[in-house]
């Protein structure tokens, strides 16, 4: 028997063992992914509750002056400025907990609705991807399908980009000037949204706890979420960080979302799927793994450069987005080859 024959014979003998090992590794990987997601879900709930408490405090300060923002500012200016500073910091922490697991939450059919409600859904005026929920406010008003809580409601509200939500321009940093974003925002909407955030974060945690991890969901999650990288890069390109115009995503760069989502996809693949794919086709697994490394490398480099103050030109930003999309398309195509070989149905 020549060398090749020996390798084939060994492969045949070890194949069942490898299959069992892959199953165990898959189960363990899926459990790890679930635990990781739950950990951040719990973090999100904790931060959302703190945010709710912060908003309740802010709301109480305004209410103590009969809802007169000017009077409240005149009497409690320093406290209100400090509250807004705290609220923004809490918002960022809550948002970052969610961004870390967004790729997984949005990719699992059973939890995908929470992504629309919390982070990615449109208001009811849009035709697709509508966040299906109504938001009750403390004064009894109910906002019908108002859009997602993080980026449609709270971020523009807390950072003063929602003009309707600005109640009083105010010199929050005390530098003698009132620049854009320095203002008191609508306390009623803010508290209602924070309550909604806490409520839906708890619902997500409950559904994620009930989720039974499985191969189909893991594959679907990777196939559905990985190609969204181009959309997020597009939003990044259009945001103030590239165009210099004030728009959405003022609190932090959209690249934070890209990094969180793609990290989630990589985690799902490397922990839950890689053992299965490697057992079927080791070459394919290594190519997919390398693809994720390449994609995350591109995203992390870009994010690091942005954080270091790099100003990207229009073509460079466009080229980065196109390249990220190309890599993502390639990864998804290879994952689909793996799914076909494993006879796994992709949902959605």
């Amino acid at each position, binding site marked *: 028997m020549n*060398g*090749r024959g020996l*390798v084939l014979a060994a492969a045949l003998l070890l194949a069942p063992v490898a299959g069992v090992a892959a199953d165990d590794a898959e189960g363990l990987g899926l459990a790890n992914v679930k635990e990781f997601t739950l950990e951040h879900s719990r973090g999100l709930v904790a931060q959302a509750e703190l945010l709710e408490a912060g908003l309740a405090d802010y709301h109480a300060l305004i209410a103590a002056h009969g809802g007169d923002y000017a009077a409240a500012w005149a009497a409690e200016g320093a406290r209100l400025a400090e509250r807004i500073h705290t609220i923004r910091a809490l918002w960022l922490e809550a948002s970052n907990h969610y961004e870390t697991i967004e790729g997984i939450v949005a990719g699992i*059919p*059973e939890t*995908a*609705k929470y992504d*629309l409600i919390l982070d990615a859904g449109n208001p009811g*005026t*849009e*035709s*697709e991807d*509508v966040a*299906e929920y109504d938001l009750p406010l403390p004064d009894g008003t109910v906002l019908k399908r108002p859009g997602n809580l993080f980026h449609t409601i709270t971020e523009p509200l807390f950072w003063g980009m929602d003009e309707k939500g600005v109640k009083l321009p105010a010199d929050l940093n005390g530098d003698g000037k009132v620049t854009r974003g320095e203002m008191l925002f609508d306390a009623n909407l803010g508290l209602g949204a924070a309550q909604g955030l806490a409520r839906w974060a708890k619902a997500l945690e409950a559904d994620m706890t009930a989720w039974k991890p499985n191969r189909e969901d893991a594959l679907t999650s990777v196939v559905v979420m990985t190609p969204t990288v181009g959309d997020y890069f597009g939003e990044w390109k259009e945001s103030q960080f590239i165009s210099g115009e004030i728009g959405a995503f003022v609190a932090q760069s959209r690249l934070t979302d890209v990094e969180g989502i793609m990290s989630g996809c990589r985690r799902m693949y490397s922990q839950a799927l890689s053992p299965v794919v490697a057992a079927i*086709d*080791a*070459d*394919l697994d*290594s*190519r997919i793994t*390398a693809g994720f*490394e*390449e994609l995350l*490398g*591109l995203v992390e*480099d870009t994010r690091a450069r942005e954080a270091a103050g790099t100003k990207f*030109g*229009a*073509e*460079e930003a*466009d*080229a*980065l987005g*196109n*390249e990220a999309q190309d890599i993502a*398309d*390639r990864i998804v*195509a*290879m994952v*689909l*080859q793996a*799914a*076909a*070989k494993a006879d796994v149905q992709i*949902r*959605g």
Partner: protein
Amino acid sequence: MIAQAARLFLPVLAFLFAAFGTVAAADVPWQDAEALRAESAQIQRRLFRTPDTRLHEDVAARLEAVRGLWSTRLRAAYEEAAPSKVEAVDKAVTAFAEAVGRWDPEASASARARVWTGLLDGAFRAALSSLDAGRVEEAAGWLNIREYARTSRDTAASIAMREVRVGRMAPNEARGVIQTELLGVYAGELRKAVAEARDHRAAGYEVQLAGSLARAAGLHALLSESLAARLGAQKTGEIAEAFTRLDDPQAPDLDATLMRIEALLATYAPASLSPDERDRRVQLLARFLALVPVEYEKGVRNGEIAIPFEYFEAGLFRDRAEMLFGDLGYDLAARSPQAFDRLSAILREMQALIAQKGGGTKVAGLAEEARGLVAAAYGTDLSKGGYGAALSLLPDVLDEMLAASAAENWEDAELKRLEAYALFDPDIEQRLMPRAPALALKMEADFWEGSAAEPGFSRIVAARGPGDALTLAVARMKAATQEAARILDTRLSGLGAFLQSLAILLREGLEAVLVLACMIGALKASGLPARGAGGWRRPVAGGVLAALGGSFALWFAVGRLFALSTLQRELLEGLSALAAAAVLVYVTHWIFRKSYVGDWIAEIRRKAAAAAKATEGGGKGYLGWFTLFSLSFLVVFREGFETVLFYEALLIDAPALPVLTGLAAGGVLAAGVGYVMLGLEARLPVSAFFRLTGALLAVLCVVLVGSGIRGLQTAALVSATPVAWFPDRPWLQIYLGLYPVGEALLAQALVAAFLAISVFGFVRQRKAV
């Protein structure tokens, strides 16, 4: 710094892994190709930056890695398996190194694209030649250097390679599959590169423009043999000549050249579609062209978006039509170059109109013209879309409904349910009803409330779950769809066509014949004159003729003059059934009264004069002219339109002669039933005849009420609650209008109770007299 160093050494690690890897990997260093692609991309990204010493050093190290990856093992492997590509890659690697040395991002992007497309080209040829030589593992290694279908999810090549490696497929068979898929992928990538070049040119992105142009040129070289084989020497020469003019990205006529290439490639398909695949695409194309104006008219009013979802769907359906047009382009151009050019222009015009929210009439006109072109090229059967297209699309739409429900987006799930039903009702149900009425009814019920044991889509979606039940219902529907396809794909025999034609007429027409016969019998028994202005013959015959004319007129007008949606048709049928039931209850009540209460003949004769006056527009008379006319009209019109549709559908599937024979035989049988009823009038005592016809009409009242309520339920105007205690039998539903649904049964029970009470009251009245 550490991270940078780690990334720099990734190619080296890949190299080491490759060196000690598996047998296949040792033969084909595909990992080196992957590493080269990734590393050259890293360099390209850095060329956007302003260089400093550190960046220069970083890039120089990476460039060295790229050169090493090519020259160490890849070059030797290509030299052996694809020698014709070595020189091109050699030159491109050198050009890349020189461009990077000059910090020239445009030239670098161009050279990098040439390196990669050269590697793809060689790997493609090497994979096929390895299969030809039976070196399967080597072929599998080469197949790792490739591009993938971005959206079509093609996986046939991977599966074929898996099968050939385990000995379940012959290498030459796998070769065909792999070649077809890869050529298709590269043809798509070529079109994409040309389109991107135009975009980059418009945006002024010089670096990306250079990359796209070089990628297009490289893919053109890869596909050159296929292009020559598929398009012929002249057109291939024109394409090659156009590509020579892409060398200068600054050329003023660059955009015109790219457009010309797009036009020349429009009819290129690397592989011919099989007749089945082609027919399926023609049907789908016709169907999507028909759907665009339907959705658009709902979605856009007066230049504004009225219903966003419908507007979105109109755009989506146009895009799908364009994709199918792309697949069919080569075939259509061969059949009719004029039709190809015009259809291409129409799709562009539609796109512009939809984007501008232009006039719906214009969109409808364009869609109609496009369907005409498809019909002229492929025949009217295929261009109708028909059940084949509907059966193909239905599972996809059901999956979309499931996906929407899984995301808890129940409003979208409901829209998808209605979209699926719109596919089922006109194209599947009408063809299936004449041939398998039980299956058609079961499928229809599953779109709505289903049964108590197996809830249908409408009920589950309205209750927002549970998801498992919806998954089960979809699985049932998919199985039923397959069964329907099997039945409809089977050509009917002459005897089968005859029997089904006979069954349609008896099923749809017997009810009307019985009602009319009973009514005419009662009128004759009453001694009323048939002829003359005050006679019953004119209103009865007029009603029947008007109904027949109306049925054909409606059949003719629908689709030509106006659209009648599925739900509107159900509503029309339901309302006409209920109106007929209302008139019939009145008539039945009257007949019972006459049959049980004495001196009825005198009363009838006394009212005969009044009837004559009523005919002339006078006062209210006995079973007045309008009552007779409307009842005759309603009982015939109720089923008339649908009967015409059923026969139209049957004639598509079956030979005409047996269908017409069945129709004639059914007519004779129905007339026979009518004759027997009228004969009874002559033989039975008048009161007994009235009791018999009254009882029969009472049953028909109950049938009509059941059908009417069911129609309103299907039109989504009345809720439907399935009940477990009533039998779910197709024959009860088809012939007696008895559905296991609470609302319909309740309405039928109330009507039956009313008629029973009226009989009971008349009996007591008679005893009292």
